């Protein structure tokens, strides 16, 4: 299992387009991918789960991946989140 903490820094948080990009990226991974936020575990492969998480700008979240490509999974999702900030 691999996990990493990231800060959500784009103005709209994990909303609409950023959320769908993240879900699409997570869906490509073979591992189980979740987001820990506010003592909740969010399924990163589910749009409903990610939207329902209410993750806004300034939220600290932990990306957790468990499975054969766990290292790449965490890496690719953190990279994607970093791009949101630009």
């Amino acid at each position, binding site marked *: 299992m691999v996990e990493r903490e990231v800060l959500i820094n784009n103005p*709209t948080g994990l*909303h609409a*387009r950023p959320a769908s990009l993240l879900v699409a990226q997570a869906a490509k991974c073979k591992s189980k991918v979740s987001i820990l936020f506010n003592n909740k575990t969010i399924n990163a492969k589910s*749009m*409903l*789960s990610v939207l329902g998480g*209410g993750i806004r700008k300034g939220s600290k979240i932990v990306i957790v991946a468990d499975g054969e490509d766990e290292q790449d999974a965490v890496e690719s999702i953190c990279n994607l989140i970093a791009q949101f900030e630009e």
Partner: protein
Amino acid sequence: MLFKGIGAAPGLAVAPCLIVQPLPDINTFAQVISRETVDEELNRFSNAVEVASGQLEAIRAKAEAAGDKTRADIIGAQAMMLTDPMLDEGVRERITDQLYSAVRAVKEVAEEQADILAGLDDPYMRERSADVKDIGNRIMAVLMGVQEKDLSAIVEDVILVGREITPSQMASLNAEKVKGIVAEIGGKTSHTAILANNMEIAAVLGCKDIMSAVSDGQALLINGGAGIVETEITEERKASLQVEIQKRHRIKESLNELIHQPARTRDGHTVELAANIMGPDGAVKAAKLGADGVGLFRTEFLFMDRTSPPSEEEQYEAYSKALKALPGKPVIIRTMDIGGDKEIAYLNLPKEENPFLGYRAIRICLQDKPLFKTQLRAILRAGVHGRALVMYPMIASLEEVRAANQLLQESKDELRAEIQAFDENLQAGIMVEIPSAAVTADLLIDDVAFFSIGSNDLTQYTLAVDRMNENISSLYNHFQPGVLRLIRMVIETANRAGRGKFAGMCGEMASDPLATLLLLGMGMTEFSVNPSALLKIKKIITSVDMEYAREVAEKAMKLSTADEISTYLAEAIPAELREYL
């Protein structure tokens, strides 16, 4: 009886009602299953999702074939949600662990998910919440064996009435025959309302208790503009309404005859009648309406609702698409007008005391040069696909025009060095919306190809009336003589300059039928209007003589108050045109 709801889409109709039955009470179906039938129930669920998915795909394909992208996208997003793991796992867990029947499990999970999204207090999330309920109901209907009423197969005129009319029902119905929509829930910004407007179907939503007052086949009257539904209509009233409806229909038909005619007065004076658009799809619509081009492409909408500015490539695609939709016709692309009442989070603009007098539009662009040049490069490159013109907003002085033109020149040099195709002769003009620009039009004209009068801001700045402040909204009036004198000055300066220079208008005033004769008579040669007003304005222009318009303008300019002027202009419109206003 008269029912009042929210007028969600305009239109007037009398037709028999067709009730869209809500789902049967799920309590009449099995709520629990036995341990032995778990696998069977899981299979029923999988099959129901598959059937629902097939239904949505059929609706989506139909909408796409009809060229209705809004409908196709809404349904496409719902289809994605059908297979969301939260829904899938939630339902399977309840069936397997709690021995719930599939229908009960779907109901509970869909409601739970919808509530979470609705609780986030965000308009976007509320719409998604309605989508989740919609797909939940769709799966439940399949599980309960409810035959979906095929709304696309309606062959007689009807008004649909339901507790709720869902976006997917809207997307599937036969828009030719459905004359109105009445529902107990929903509001102005719901997907159902957006679709009804798009499809030009009258809609009254949030119309409480309507379901208990109507039965299938009963005649109903709907007035979508006023948000009114009537259930008891006398034959007399029905007849007079039919007359009114036919009149509206006739007016619409007669306006449609103008689509392929030029905007030319009876005595042969032609003007350009263009449309205002918010994106490339608007250009396609403008072409269908017979617009002579686009007088205002509001590019700021490409910059909104996202987390970073659109790339050069993305902008190039959008501008090219608009240009290709109107081959050979001018498309005026206004560089982004952000700030004031339009905020964009990623630009990190500070909060201002006076945003309308602050850091906005060209003022941002001249400081954030990379942002501006990206847009200029995209417009220059797109220019090879048609007749593009670029327009700078919020110009107050000649220095700003020159600075913007300098950056345009630099962008051309860069593209030339990169050996990229672009429009070498792209013409640049300005919005005239700041009084100083209007007063110094003669000083600006040599450096621009055209003026486009932004009447909304010009009115607000000339009268010092904040147009967002409701307390003083009565003071905001584009017929104030002070505003009209500035407008005349701008038009006359452009007309005197020759060299192909012109003055047009893209503000709301250009879409105001009361102002048409006045502006025409002042010598304005380009009107850029809202698509919904285009044919009305063309009707006025094509029904009068230029000579008469000049007389009207001259008389109006001698009057001293806005009231006198608008009263006179209303009287000046020939009587036979009044029913078109």
